């Protein structure tokens, strides 16, 4: 007894007193980490290993002296402008969006396009641990018709049928320089999930004249498979130091064999890193549409690929001999083979149908028809659900 009292008195701090947590799992709250801490620990990346390398051009500091002086001068002018003041108080200043965008492209756009590209995982999927600032604004327009000219920005959604033909590409450049344009997608490759499809490859472009460039791989419209969702289609413009020989990538045109279009930007960049520097970036997202079915059948000579998202299967407790308070029919169906159940429902449906007669018209008030009251209650509820199309029957109608 004396020793026990001594032990109790010797513990001074609250934390060191042993508390028996009989009904709680894990460590006591003083020692255990919170979920936030645990997620931060899991997602922590060592900066010595996971650092990123800039493979593009260095960004010139646009906040130079002339710019700062012009900024201050204009701000002062605006403050003394009484017309502008009146407009501001009436909330009638409408900034010209096109003009504002042009100024944005000349100043902070590369940083912000870089942010959005990171949000879409562009650099990670194309270059691994490398990145670049898109210093050259690329204008990519699909000339679908006179009225509809969808433009590629930074991840906007463009339907596949609008992007049937090769787009017009514009950028400002020195006419003596040489450029390479690549359009690839890292999503939905049929042969290997880790590689890309090359949709367009034009090399040795003199100046900004894409039509006079050397077309190594011809343009293929976006072909996202049905059910896999939105794929990214990424245009990257590279600046060449010298004229390059791309004959090893050259494919017979039109290149309709998808295996020939397999592409890995990482390997391509690794090989030509001394001669190529990425300078421009635009990308869009595209999902399956109905016009692609015909394209798959007639042009690519393959079936229309159909995929489904694999949802997590529900957790089922191990079955017991005597389940308490469970409807026996529903309970037992959960543990049965799904295929067998499908077969039974399908057979039941086919039994009602006559090959040459029209099906019976649907009941207007299905539950107004009497059900034999001598039947067991589970069968009665099953019949009611069947009439209303509730429960399992909903999958087979």
């Amino acid at each position, binding site marked *: 007894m004396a020793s026990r009292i001594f032990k109790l008195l010797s513990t001074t701090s609250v934390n060191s007193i042993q508390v028996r947590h009989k009904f709680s799992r894990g460590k006591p709250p003083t020692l255990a980490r919170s979920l936030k801490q645990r997620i931060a620990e899991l997602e922590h990346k060592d900066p010595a290993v996971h650092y990123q390398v800039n493979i593009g051009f260095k960004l010139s500091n646009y906040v130079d002296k002339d*710019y700062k002086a012009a900024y201050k001068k204009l*701000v002062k002018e*605006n403050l003394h402008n009484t017309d502008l*003041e009146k*407009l*501001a*108080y009436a909330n*009638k*200043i*409408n*900034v010209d*969006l096109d003009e*504002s965008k042009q*100024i*944005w492209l000349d*100043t*902070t756009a590369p940083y*912000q396009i870089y*942010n*959005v590209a*990171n*949000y879409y*995982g562009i650099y990670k999927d194309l270059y691994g641990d490398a990145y670049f600032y898109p210093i050259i604004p690329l204008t990519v327009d699909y000339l679908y018709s006179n009225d509809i000219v969808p433009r590629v*920005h930074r*991840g*906007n959604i463009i339907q596949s049928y609008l992007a049937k033909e090769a787009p017009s590409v514009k950028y400002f450049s020195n006419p003596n320089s040489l450029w390479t344009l690549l359009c690839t997608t890292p*999503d*939905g*490759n*049929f*042969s*290997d*999930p880790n590689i890309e499809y090359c949709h367009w490859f034009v090399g040795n472009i003199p100046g900004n004249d894409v039509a006079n460039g050397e077309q190594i791989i011809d343009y293929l419209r976006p072909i996202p498979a049905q*059910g*896999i*969702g*939105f*794929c990214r289609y990424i245009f990257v413009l590279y600046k060449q130091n010298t004229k390059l020989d791309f004959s090893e990538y050259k494919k017979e045109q039109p290149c309709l064999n*998808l*295996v020939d279009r397999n592409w890995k930007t990482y390997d391509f960049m690794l090989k030509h890193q001394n001669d190529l520097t990425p300078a421009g970036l635009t990308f*869009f*997202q595209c*999902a399956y549409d109905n016009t692609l079915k015909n394209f798959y059948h007639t042009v*690519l000579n*393959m*079936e229309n*690929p159909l*995929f*489904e*998202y*694999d*949802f997590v299967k*529900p957790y089922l407790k191990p079955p017991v001999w005597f389940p308490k308070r469970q409807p026996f029919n*529903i309970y037992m*169906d*959960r543990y049965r083979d799904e295929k067998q159940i499908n077969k039974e429902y399908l057979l039941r449906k086919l039994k009602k149908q006559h090959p040459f007669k029209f099906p019976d018209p649907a009941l207007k008030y299905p539950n107004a028809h009497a059900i034999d009251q001598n039947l067991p209650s589970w069968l009665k509820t099953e019949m009611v*659900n069947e009439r209303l199309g*509730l*429960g*399992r029957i909903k999958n087979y109608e």
Partner: protein
Amino acid sequence: MNNLIKKFRCVNVKSVIAVRHVETNANLLANCIEIRNNNPRNLELMTIARKPEGYTLDNPRSGINYWNKLVVLQTKRSVEAQIHHFRNGPVIKVSSSDWCLRKFLYRTYDVAAYANIGRILAQRCLESGITQIHCNIESERSRKHKVLLSALKKGGLILSEPKTYKHKFAWHMKKSLKPWTV
């Protein structure tokens, strides 16, 4: 048709597959075991992705249940509107002290500044593929916020996000419509 339906796996699932020798497109599809969409925003667009739901004692109106959210930061000198992603942080930023906006303004924090920030932010969002955002700013509180939100709406943004799609199993009473099949 049934044998054509193959399993489409989630982005995070990693598995090694052997690349077989295939020549034609039909062969390629027949031998396709796995297809992966690496687009990190795909599940959010398909409304399957999860939103952070918070802890049991969190206030459901505390504004954490979102994919993309509007955040307005006001300082003495300027106003900045941002689109935050719940994981990646700020994605798009528009400030009234930006040269592309400041040039045309009388002051950086008046009602006209808010209205024009809204117009430019809406344009940048649509260009970046963000059409729906979560917004827990109550517009009735201030005239400036009211002007900002109406400019965003006028620009084509929808100020509410869709609910996450919850998959219904075979024995559930009612069928749920898959939003991406519509």
